[in-house]
């Protein structure tokens, strides 16, 4: 253990009601959301994200129609929690400033504006408005493994200049190894304003969720995303109850009760899973080939429909250098593969 790690204070941000919408095909019920949010709140988790898996306005043919609207989900959860704050994700190009205003009016405290790691300048409208509205404003740079650290910092500086008070390095593909995380987080910490916070969002496709999150904390990240029971896209997010326990062992202060969070994962989240969240062959491919984790179920469905291999579809999506949001290309790829089958 690094001597500087103990006595650190970090914010755990739970993803199971947003990223967890992906493996649930956006069908989590209001009651499930409320019971999980209540459990997280009582365990002391300070920040909980709630929306469609693809953020505000994500309801679509392309990403899936949710059981309820963002408004219904947010209203239900915000009315349920006592201490925890609620965050909402927004991807410019999918959601708009109207969604942002709606979220603010509903009582969302944190807006996370997400772009592909090279495209920060599409977030100016949204970040500057969120900041103006007095929201905790986060710039969320997705698929950050695709960009070298120095270039990632340039994009982070743009988001900071628009008004983001926190910048995330987001490992959407679960591709990064601890050294990749360290290189990025260290340089972000060095180059951003001292009062700009740094966060890390991991996926567990190579089982690196905990190791990568620790690497991030070691290099100065103070917000760590994870998901109770790991419920999230691909092989899930960093399992939050496990990371929390590790933090307690290491003396990192999360303010979250180890056993109560473990109870939420075991008793509330695991029972709602449609399939176990685990590193199956397809999830391994996501992490190994650097492919957006949310593609997983779309690839499985297209594979079944067109009689081709789901791992082959994901590898092709990686070869095409697709980015988050290009779910539409999965059926296109599957049709081409079926046509060209020997």
């Amino acid at each position, binding site marked *: 253990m690094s001597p500087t790690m103990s006595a650190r204070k970090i914010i755990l941000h739970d993803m199971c009601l947003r990223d967890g919408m992906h493996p649930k095909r956006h069908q989590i019920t209001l009651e499930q959301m409320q019971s999980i949010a209540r459990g997280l709140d009582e365990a002391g988790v300070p920040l909980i994200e709630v929306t469609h898996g693809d953020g505000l306005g994500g309801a679509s043919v392309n990403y899936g129609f949710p059981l309820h609207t963002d408004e219904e989900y947010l209203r239900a959860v915000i009315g349920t929690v006592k201490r925890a704050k609620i965050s909402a994700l927004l991807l410019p190009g999918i959601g*708009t400033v109207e969604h942002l205003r709606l979220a603010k009016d509903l009582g969302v405290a944190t807006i996370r504006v997400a772009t592909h790691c090279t495209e920060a300048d599409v977030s*100016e409208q949204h970040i500057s408005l969120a900041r103006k509205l007095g929201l905790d404003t986060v710039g969320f740079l997705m698929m950050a493994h695709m960009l070298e650290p120095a270039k990632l910092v340039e994009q982070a500086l743009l988001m900071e200049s628009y008004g983001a008070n926190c910048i995330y390095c987001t490992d959407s593909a679960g591709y990064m190894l601890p050294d990749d995380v360290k290189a990025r987080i260290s340089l972000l910490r060095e180059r951003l304003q001292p009062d700009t916070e740094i966060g890390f969002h991991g996926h567990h496709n190579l089982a690196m969720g905990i190791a990568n999150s620790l690497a991030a904390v070691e290099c100065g990240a103070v917000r760590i995303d994870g998901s109770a029971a790991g419920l999230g896209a691909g092989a899930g997010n960093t399992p939050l109850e496990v990371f929390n326990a590790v933090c307690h062992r290491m003396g990192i202060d999360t303010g979250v009760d180890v056993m109560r969070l473990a109870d939420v994962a075991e008793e509330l989240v695991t029972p709602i899973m449609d399939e176990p969240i685990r590193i199956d062959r397809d999830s391994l491919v996501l992490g190994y080939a650097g492919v957006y984790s949310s593609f997983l179920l779309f690839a499985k469905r297209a594979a079944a429909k067109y009689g081709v291999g789901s791992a082959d579809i994901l590898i092709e999506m990686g070869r095409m250098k697709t980015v988050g949001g290009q779910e*539409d290309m999965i059926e*296109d790829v599957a049709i081409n593969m079926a046509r060209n089958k020997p």
Partner: protein
Amino acid sequence: MAQRINAALIGSGNIGTDLMMKALRSAEINPVWMVGIDPASDGLARARAHGLKTTTEGVDGLLPHLATDDIRIAFDATSAYVHHENARKMREAGVVMIDLTPAAIGPFCVPPVNLAEHAGRREMNVNMVTCGGQATIPMVAAVSRVQQVDYAEIVATVASRSAGPGTRKNIDEFTRTTAHGIESVGGAKRGKAIIILNPAEPPLIMRDTVHCLTATTPNQQAITESVKKMIAEVQRYVPGYTLKNGPVFDGNRVSIYLEVEGLGDYLPKYAGNLDIMTAAALRTAEMLAPEIAAGAYGQTNPQSGA
């Protein structure tokens, strides 16, 4: 033979410059001015090389020359934010405006769907929706002319290099304006638009996916025929407009997978999003040109006075 009418191009970025290259070949439109704000603009340099007059003073630098140079039509390729002011100034000067920003002040024009409707209407401002709208609304219309479309959604994926600062600052206007166009021109009861920027190198050719949800079971044969016919219509002015896959039928979902390769006039061929926009704008202007030349728009500077 139609008389060429004099035109001003406002905006010297990717779209304005590509439009200029196409307009130089037009039998109806004569590009005379290009307006910019950046003296170092590559577009302005190219415009001067092709004999156009240029200003770096924005629209105000053009205003004193409208009458003397008999400018009858202007194309705005700036951004939705500045279009409102540009539109007002051109309207006051009696210059017809073709708007390539997503400002959507004037009625939408998607040529293969509703160009003819704009004839004889004397509209002083016609809006070209968005690049994604030009690429996808014809497909929505191709389905909705067969049977009712309750919902249509489009996903436009463009190469990062083909999205200039205007598009990036305007990303909400893109989704909003495209969604409105899907409804009002495409004929869907409800529309949604998604745009994705992809930085891959070499850059990807523009891809567009159109998902329609029909009210009743889709008539597969009629929709497939209608889509193919519409593809041919678009190909008349954008030869690189291609049906890659589909229509795919899955319950009431009809999905159409498109690729749009440009002519490579200014940016390389991958930037089909620029090409379909500028080609559509020019086609619209060419259709209106004879009416404008005949003085149907009541300009303050009729041709005889120039």
